[in-house]
């Protein structure tokens, strides 16, 4: 790991500790007083390092200006803030430098009599010491400290506006007060947390990921990272959040409409591929429920981007009559193991790591504990799917059927894949036009007179998604009711998850 952000010159710019860059307290001696390293020999050491202790008499004998990382009393200079170590890109202690006219002209690390003599021009150094002793790791490259150092000294390249919270402000209340949360507490997006989050992707922080409705704001990788921190994501989740945002902001998903509608819907994220297990997502017991950090925070991060970057807030552009609990977060992984189906994303043309977003509206249970043949189970599915949105409304609202492993086993043992089940359901979900007409069954809702032929399919082509998830036990599946589908509304979108 480099102590310096990529793209930032390290050794090539040895006077980065020049005027104006020393932010340590007034009592701390700055390098060289004028902010420049003193000419001559300069060393950085750590008292906890046996090699540094070994070379102490050598350094004192040479009269070197020595900065110590962990004990401000050991030598004349204090680098316990690690600023100098960070700016000099010190990776190993001891590091010995030769400075001429404020510029580093030579450097050696660890102890090597030959190299120290060459650098200093002094013969017979370290009498009684071994010829060679490797150094220790610099505190400035300690993984636990590097993000904070980069945020403080690194010219981190973060473009987001920095907001100073007053000392008397409770930081969690401060974030609520600024309107940045979904009603639950969020993790304060400090620069070091955002930098750490950005390590989860190789993409440039300035790259625009998507143009986010409703305000149509170009959203960078960095802004996604800020919101992923708020949501509680780990850095390794970031690529999935980025892919979910790309998918949700694709034109055919119609996110503006999904947000603005009085209907219940919000984005439901289904994750496929090895990435799901790698980042610890849940596709098993309670897959649609609480308790898994990746599931919970990836869906939440997407919604926070829509809220904070896109400006989509409930009661403003979001006009949902009731909404649904999944508008806080709704994200799960498909259970690809022992599934009767090919992975959902692969069936939609994106094999491997991918996300699929669907405009979904909460969970409707399907209970069938007796069907042991696929035909019977399909009829149960059809009967439950028929009431999606309203039993008399065909071709309008999409749905996602989440088949559980025990139901999946029935299909698998019958050799039914996704296409076969879809074909069976298509046959079972042809609704007689007479039952759908306005007024039929004593219900005003329904199709206007004259628009339906003899039979009408319940779902538009492509309007019924199927996925596989859940725990081993339970002859239950789930229907996630959808919004208006297809060109008139939202089309599900699948996108690759890129590192």
């Amino acid at each position, binding site marked *: 790991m480099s102590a310096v952000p990529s793209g930032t010159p390290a050794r090539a710019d040895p006077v980065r500790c020049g005027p104006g860059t020393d932010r340590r307290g007034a009592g701390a001696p700055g390098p060289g007083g004028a902010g420049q390293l003193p000419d001559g020999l300069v060393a950085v050491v750590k008292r906890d390092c046996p090699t540094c202790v070994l070379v102490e008499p050598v350094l004192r004998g040479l009269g070197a200006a020595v900065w110590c990382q962990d004990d401000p009393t050991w030598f004349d200079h204090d680098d316990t803030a690690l600023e100098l170590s960070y700016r000099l890109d010190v990776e190993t202690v001891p590091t010995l430098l030769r400075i001429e006219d404020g510029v580093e002209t030579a450097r050696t690390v660890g102890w090597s009599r030959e190299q120290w003599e060459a650098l200093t021009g002094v013969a017979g150094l370290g009498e009684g010491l071994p010829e060679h002793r490797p150094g220790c790791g610099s505190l400035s490259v300690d993984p636990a400290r590097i993000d904070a150092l980069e945020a403080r000294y690194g010219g981190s390249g973060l473009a987001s506006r920095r907001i100073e919270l007053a000392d008397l402000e409770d930081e969690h209340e401060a974030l609520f007060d600024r309107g940045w949360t979904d009603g639950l507490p969020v993790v304060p997006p400090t620069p070091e947390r955002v930098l750490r989050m950005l390590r989860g992707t190789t993409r440039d922080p300035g790259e625009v990921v998507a143009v986010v409705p409703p305000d149509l704001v170009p959203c960078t990788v960095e802004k996604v990272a*800020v919101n992923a921190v708020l949501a509680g994501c780990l850095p390794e989740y970031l690529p999935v959040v980025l892919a979910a945002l790309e998918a949700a902001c694709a034109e055919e998903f119609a996110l503006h409409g999904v947000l603005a509608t009085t209907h219940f819907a919000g984005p439901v994220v289904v994750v496929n591929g090895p990435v799901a297990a790698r980042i610890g997502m849940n596709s098993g017991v309670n897959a649609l429920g609480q308790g898994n950090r990746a599931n919970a925070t990836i869906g939440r991060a997407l919604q926070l981007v829509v809220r*904070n970057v896109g*400006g989509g807030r409930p009661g403003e552009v979001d006009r949902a009559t009731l909404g649904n609990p999944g508008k806080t977060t709704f994200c799960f992984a498909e259970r690809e193991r022992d599934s009767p189906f090919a992975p959902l994303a692969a069936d939609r043309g994106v094999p491997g790591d991918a996300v699929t977003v669907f405009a979904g509206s909460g969970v409707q249970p399907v209970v069938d504990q007796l069907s042991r043949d696929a035909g019977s189970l399909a009829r149960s599915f059809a009967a439950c799917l028929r009431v999606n949105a309203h039993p008399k409304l065909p071709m309008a609202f999409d749905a996602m059927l989440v088949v559980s492993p025990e139901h999946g086993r029935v299909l698998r043992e019958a050799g039914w894949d996704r296409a076969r089940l879809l074909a069976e359901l298509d046959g079972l979900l042809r609704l007689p036009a007479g039952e759908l007409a306005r007024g039929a069954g004593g219900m005003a809702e329904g199709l206007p007179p004259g628009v339906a032929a003899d039979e009408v399919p319940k779902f538009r082509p492509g309007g019924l998604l199927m996925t596989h998830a859940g725990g081993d036990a339970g002859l239950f599946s789930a229907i996630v009711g959808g*919004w208006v589908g297809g060109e*008139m*509304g939202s089309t599900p979108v699948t996108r690759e998850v890129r590192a």
Partner: protein
Amino acid sequence: MRTVLDPTGERRAPERPLLPRPASLQGRSVGLLDISKARGDVVLDRLAELLGEHGATVRRYRKPTFARVAPVDLRQEITEHCEVVIEALAD
């Protein structure tokens, strides 16, 4: 002092004032935009009748779907041809 990064788009949508309300609709061009919600035509048909009685010239427009924002061309056309617009949302 703790520092956090702004999670918003750091933009504010421009606020444009509404045009002044016309004193009379006599001779004005009034656009009626049907957003394709069920029965939106019912209210717009009646409005068209009433507007005609007030001497307004009524122009009818329709979004392809209520689920998406109006196409740019449609917005442009309405802007060029209408002095007043009424949009029907309702079911």
